[in-house]
């Protein structure tokens, strides 16, 4: 399984990564190998196994709707690149949500 440069570029764009040409080429190879490893799963016989989204034998883990404490504001803002008016300040982004 190999992937091409445009697929690497697409993944990099989605992850907001800027890659040099060398990195793109190296990742193209590495990602191809990872996909190849997953290809091995296709050799397994899964005909009698029902599909699942979860591999641990757990279900219905829920909590009661009880409010507990939160962090102090300065702790919340501790890792912020910049702070303004008690908020995290980032470079302007266009609203595309």
């Amino acid at each position: 399984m190999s992937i091409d440069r445009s697929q690497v570029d697409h993944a990099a764009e989605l992850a907001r990564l800027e890659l040099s040409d060398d990195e793109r080429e190296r990742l193209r190879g590495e990602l191809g190998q990872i996909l190849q490893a997953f290809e091995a799963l296709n050799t397994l016989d899964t005909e009698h196994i029902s599909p699942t989204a979860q591999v641990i034998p757990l279900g219905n883990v829920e909590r009661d709707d009880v409010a507990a404490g939160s962090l102090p504001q300065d702790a919340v803002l501790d890792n912020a690149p910049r702070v303004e008016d008690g908020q995290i300040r980032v470079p302007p982004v266009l609203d595309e949500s």
Partner: protein
Amino acid sequence: MTTAYRTVIGLETHVQLRTRSKMFCGCAADYANARPNTHVCPVCLGMPGVLPVINREAVDHTIRTGLALNCEIPEYAKFDRKNYAYPDLMKWYQISQYDLPLCVNGHFDVEVNGATTRVGITRVHLEEDTARLTHVTAADGAPASLIDVNRSGAPLMEIVSEPDIQTPAEAMAYGEKLRALLRWIGVSTANMEDGALRIDANISVWPEGEPVGDVKVEVKNMNSFRSLGRALAFEIERQTARRERGQPIEQETRGWDESAGVTRSQRTKEYAHDYRYFPEPDLPPLHVTRQRVDALRAALPRLPDQVAADLINQGAPEADVAELVQDRPLTDYTLAVIEAGASAGEAVTWIVHEFRRALNAQTNKSAAIPIPPAEVASLLALRAKGSVSSTMAGEVLDEMFATGKSASTIVEARGPQISGQDELLAIARQVIQENPQAVQDYRDGKGRAIQYLMGQVMRITRGKANPSAVSTLIRTQLDAME
């Protein structure tokens, strides 16, 4: 040659659920008046290594909503990660539900001008709200975006309709009725102005007779039902004009600009919707047992449509009933008034018009209605007997609100209604003499003239005259004059 067009509209409604804590952590969900970034913990801040835990009440609220919208509740549901890069997401993914939502295949009937449209409900699913961004000029003069994480992780429910809506009026009716339903079953405040209810629309216009295609325009940023109606009307006009000119409709997201009254393209990159959903590995799937669904169904209140149908069957006018069931506390109150002996028709009409006016004049609107329902029933009975006129009943009610006294005490204190023939006759004659124009109008066949003259008699008697006696008297006098 003019071509006819048909409009296809589907709505996506986001609803903030009424819970004490957030969706996946114990931060208080009541952040509306909190300082920024004070309802935040490592989970909703997206710190490495934290684990989300599902809020049971949020799941129950979603199932309640699904049941109220006639949905099926599948036995298995799961959460998924929806990945996108935007600073309103702390984790760069939102926990949502992709292919196994909590509720599917429902329907919701909406009425416009007496015609009912059944709108299919594709699904109702549960997710987490995002942080709030504000775009500002910062203190140093540079443009910046500020992030308040308080809203991040608040439980958010999304209701997706089928594209069964054809007009802006239907879309508005759907929104208004949905808001009333969400409040009725207690799952949300559903206040649009607080962002607790947000409606996005998918809309496309097609030539009549041609098949409906896949292309649609998503319209966002409508902050009221009125904006929703205006934005859709604008889109119908814009898309129809493009069709007329032979131009294609482009699949895009457009934002409604309230002040300009137009939608504008929000140019997004082509891969913006590459969300790469995958099952949330930190949350085990939900097995929604039938016992759980049955218990939630049994605990649901009777729904507005059912209560409305009952009241209409008992003789209440449809328009007043539709108005009443927007408000559950007032509906419950009205039912108690009827229970105490009032007729459904009288109680509904009088409460929607007169009682609500007096209630809204109260300063403390959040408090429970201070007058026992039986007292309103007894006031309505006095009115029905003719012991108080309609005008006087309103005044008596105001006094009941102000003093807490009973209807009969107030009516007695005000003195009996004037129904003595001689006294009324004198007043009726005086009024007729002073209003020659109204007399002429009556002769010209204007029925309203009688209402006017009655009003004059009521004014002079300060509402204490028996209305049917006055009406008869005036007619007799006028007819005798001819």
